[in-house]
């Protein structure tokens, strides 16, 4: 029987990737994700895999593009400034319908910013980041166990839907140590007849490209890709509810913000305030339906974020402004504490006319 081991979030991602069959890792050092690279540097040579420290994040993502076009599982990891550099490459992956796993262990920005945890790359991750019409599947872990599980799922999702998938973690998730259970799963085997394997003179050549100079054709490809995205929205949206059965105030939070929110909600309940939480696990696709449904019972929403307020726009869109949505946030590498969130819940409760029985 497999046993739980104590691991850092970043290391859990690395080991989970290996368990998922990833044998090609390309990265460039940046805090707070460097442990992923360090772990891969140690492990890959021992299992016949490839660890390569690229000359830049741009090169790393293009190496990923190469391995993926050759049909193998591969990944890169970085933190915010590095993800900006990878964005052109991510757009190319999307434009060629290539699967890959990209990890962003976010830090405060903009610019060089800082090295403390942040969630300010939410827009970049969920709105594209690179150019053109495309989406990534964006997974937001809130524990070390989820860092591992979502990494494994991420590879399967990427292969299934032929699209790049991102783990959007924050510095806390990366650095935090927790017991984690790592079990090998049967790798989802997905045929890749489009991959570059050499024709062996047995088939017509495969071409991987995102170029299409005929607008009618390019439009068609975009529509087809969005049809696939619709399937992802239908089948792969994930979230977790916490104390939502009778909640009148709904906190929406992911990653480290959801962990802190949990404590605040428990404290609010002790005060007789019916608070609960919807924790999006997929940020794209966003759990729109769940939030929309929640508006039937919930009277107000609070978006708790480590940013100046990005996910709040999705909360407003999903709830179609049927209920007030307020922001409870810290930025620049700061994390809201339970007291701040509890105050936001109390404040909202008062505005609604106090404790309801």
């Amino acid at each position, binding site marked *: 029987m497999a046993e739980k081991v104590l691991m850092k979030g970043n290391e859990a991602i690395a080991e989970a990737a290996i368990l998922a069959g990833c044998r*090609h890792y*390309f990265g460039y050092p940046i805090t707070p994700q460097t442990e992923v690279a360090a772990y891969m540097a140690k492990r890959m040579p021992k299992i016949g895999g*490839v660890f*390569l420290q*690229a*000359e*830049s994040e*741009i*090169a*790393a993502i*293009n*190496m*990923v*593009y*190469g*391995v*993926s*076009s*050759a*049909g*193998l599982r*591969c990944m890169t990891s970085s933190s915010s400034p590095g993800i900006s550099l990878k964005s*052109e*490459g991510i757009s*190319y992956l999307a434009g*060629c319908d290539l699967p890959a796993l990209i990890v962003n262990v976010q830090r405060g920005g903009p610019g060089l910013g800082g090295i403390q945890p942040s969630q300010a790359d939410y827009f970049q991750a969920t709105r594209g980041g690179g150019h053109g019409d495309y989406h990534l599947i964006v997974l937001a872990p809130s524990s070390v166990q989820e860092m591992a599980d979502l990494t494994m799922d991420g590879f399967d999702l990427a292969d299934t839907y032929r699209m790049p998938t991102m783990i959007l973690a924050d510095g806390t998730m990366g650095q935090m140590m927790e017991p984690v259970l790592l079990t090998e799963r049967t790798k989802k085997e997905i045929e890749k007849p489009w991959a*570059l*394997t*050499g*024709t*062996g*003179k*047995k088939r017509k*050549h*495969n*071409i*991987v*490209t*995102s*170029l299409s100079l005929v607008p009618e054709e390019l439009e068609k490809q975009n529509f087809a890709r969005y049809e696939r995205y619709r399937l992802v929205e239908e089948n792969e949206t994930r979230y977790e509810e916490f104390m939502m059965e009778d909640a009148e105030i709904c906190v929406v939070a992911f990653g480290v913000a959801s962990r802190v929110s949990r404590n605040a909600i428990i404290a609010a309940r002790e005060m007789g305030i019916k608070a609960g939480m919807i924790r999006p696990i997929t940020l794209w696709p966003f759990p729109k339906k769940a939030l929309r449904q929640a508006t039937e019972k919930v009277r107000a929403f609070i978006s708790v974020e480590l940013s100046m307020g990005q996910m709040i726009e999705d909360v407003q869109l999903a709830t179609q402004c049927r209920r007030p949505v307020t922001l409870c946030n810290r930025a620049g590498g700061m994390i809201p504490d339970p007291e701040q969130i509890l105050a936001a819940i109390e404040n909202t409760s008062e505005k609604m006319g106090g404790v309801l029985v």
Partner: protein
Amino acid sequence: MIVFQKPKTLTDAPFHYCPGCTHGIIHRLVAEALEELDIEGEAIGVAPVGCAVFAYNYFTCDMVEAAHGRAPAVATGIKRARPDKVVFTYQGDGDLASIGMAETVHAATRNENISVIFVNNAIYGMTGGQMAPTSLPGQVTQTSPYGRDVKTAGYPIKVCEMLSALDAPAYIERVAVNSVKNVKNAKRAILKAFENQMQNKGFSLIEVISACPTNWGMTPGEALNWIEEKMIPYYPLGVYKDQTKEEKP
């Protein structure tokens, strides 16, 4: 006159290149190498962003189109994923020596076991004739309308000279395709770049001095003369590095 029999490693798609453009000749030389070494079924090519972007339609082997300048990184990924395949890039001078310089230098210094075909036509062809990192001093282009002023735009980059200063790369040679003699020599060099890879020698780069009559504002004949009179003196032909005979640790 240079007469070619079309190698079987080229598709039937007609080249989109301008009359007198030597991209076509270089494509044929690459295709002949693939045919003569019988590696069509093993080869995976990486097309650039530049006039040769559609190279993926012309070669019968598997092909991928890379972002501008990133072909050596993409080729690195492919080769690391499939070490038994023969991986090559085909890149212009803007692609390889400007936006993609870092990828070029680092693939070379890793002695990545790939073959790079580098087409130096001293101009950005695809975007309509802007100054390239390889445009000659004084050369008039759309973005150097008074001629390349080395005081503000710097000097051309000599890729072979630069890369041969590195310890790692296996083979670096500069050739041209402006005469029958030079084409024959270019063919030998390109063949060698592929053979080196098949023998696990490492990184081979063949710089091919090429003509862009359209954006040079010349007839095809004038363009071939300009290569002889202006480009080759600045970019001397020859082998710049050959470590293929040495056993590297």
